[in-house]
């Protein structure tokens, strides 16, 4: 029987280990723009029933109101991200845009698939197209005219370029956003990019400022939403839980010794 208690404690150690790994990744990305903190989710494992609910307790028909169920421990159900908005960081780069509220920028990946990101630190490539830090093109293609002197991006994500020698700004295009029913479930690909999957739901594409979509802020970057205090608290919690499960193992070992002493 004690083997069950030992494996329950071992499952606890294993979950806390996963938790610590997720926390350390959060802390490592404390300064990564648009990073969303993740947390490991635990669920209880199966149960063994030793005495069923409703089993008879006498010949007179009285029944057991609760029964005995013994659990086998814990397992990791998954890792979910907190979609809380990160703090706003003001920059002097006209191509730094931030989404205030819901939504992701659509990015064309080299494979032809679409990736999604909240990291709006755009740059220009050799063809003067808007690209991410990794050089992937924004979707739709946004090409800035040559001789652009200044750039205005409004709340709706419309990009206006002021061209040298021209009195009026030219509308270059509009940034497109995608929203997901469950953005916390998107698959992270690294480089601040995400891929859609079943759990996140299919994307709804639209423009900033309309119902269900956030708005665009120019000259701004969304900071990581990792809060060091929260992570450190979680780390201490995990460390304690780890120690507790070790204590279970000690208690079981002591009980095993009690039995062994009787066999001498």
């Amino acid at each position: 029987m004690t083997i069950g208690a030992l494996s329950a404690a071992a499952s606890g150690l294993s979950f806390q280990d996963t938790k610590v790994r997720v926390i350390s990744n959060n802390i490592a990305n404390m300064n990564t723009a648009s990073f969303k903190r993740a947390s490991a989710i635990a669920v209880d494992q199966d149960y063994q029933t030793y005495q069923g609910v409703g089993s008879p307790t006498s010949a007179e028909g009285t029944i057991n109101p609760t029964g005995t169920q013994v659990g086998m421990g814990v397992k990791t159900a998954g890792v979910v991200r907190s979609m809380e908005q990160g703090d706003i960081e003001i920059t002097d780069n006209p191509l730094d845009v931030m989404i205030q509220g819901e939504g992701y920028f659509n990015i064309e990946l080299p494979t032809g698939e679409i990736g999604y990101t909240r990291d709006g630190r755009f740059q220009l490539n050799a063809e003067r197209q808007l690209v991410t830090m990794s050089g992937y093109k924004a979707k739709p293609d946004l090409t800035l005219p040559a001789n652009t002197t200044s750039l205005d991006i409004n709340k709706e994500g419309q990009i206006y370029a002021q061209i040298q020698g021209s009195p009026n700004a030219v509308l270059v295009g509009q940034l497109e956003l995608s929203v997901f029913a469950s953005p916390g479930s998107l698959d992270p690909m690294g480089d601040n990019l995400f891929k859609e999957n079943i759990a996140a739901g299919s994307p709804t594409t639209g423009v900033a400022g309309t119902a269900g979509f956030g708005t665009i802020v120019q000259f701004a970057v969304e900071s990581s939403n990792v809060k060091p205090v929260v992570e450190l608290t979680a780390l201490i919690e995990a460390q304690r839980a780890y120690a507790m499960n070790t204590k279970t193992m000690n208690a079981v070992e002591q009980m095993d010794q009690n039995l062994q002493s009787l066999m001498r």
Partner: protein
Amino acid sequence: MDSPAYLAAQHMSIARNNIQILANNLANASTSGFQADRPLVAEFEPKKNFMDSLSFAVNNENFRDTTPGEITHTGNILDVAIATKDVYFSVQNSKGENLYTRNGQLELNEERQLVQGSSKLPLSDTNKSPITIPAGMNDIKIAGDGTISANGKMVAKIGVFKFANSQSLVKQGNTLMKASTEPTTPDKVALVQRGYEASNVNPVLALAQMIELQREDSQDAFVIETYKEQSGQQIDDLLKPLNV
């Protein structure tokens, strides 16, 4: 059966069952919606007359602690916690059975049904039907009574249920429980969006229970050891006059 050694042995056997229950509680100290199990030890055959000085201990019941766990804020729109004691969400499995849970970390599946995150089973509304969020509606708000609105339009109402005897719910793993009786609708319920209910395991209490169990077990072993020595001594004493 008047031997205290047998009683101690029986108690040691129960302790081996109960240590696993406590181990499972501690292992699930971080499991959202988890409710701790408390082993109950009872007398097996109550004494019928004064000559029966002893009675066995048995453990044929666990008691599930239904104290609500603390609500942890996540900011995720699909995280819902129940702030009311002893009421449950319902999900339906592929066999059409209703299962119950306090774990309200929700997701949307590809049919845009609201599913409970850990089991991926559809969450039930007040009529025990699945809840579908129409395409294009992502601004989901969940009111305190469970009313879901998306993009300002009411979509459904999350069903919450209570039981005459909630101890009859049987744990299935994945923070789900099975009921043997039909539930009713509670008069009052308070749901909290953007948070989940943390495990109600109190690690300090669990640790104290474990230390107590371990001590009792050492005492039981001591009782058996003493009995072994005494009975051996008695036999030696009896045999002495015979010079064997």
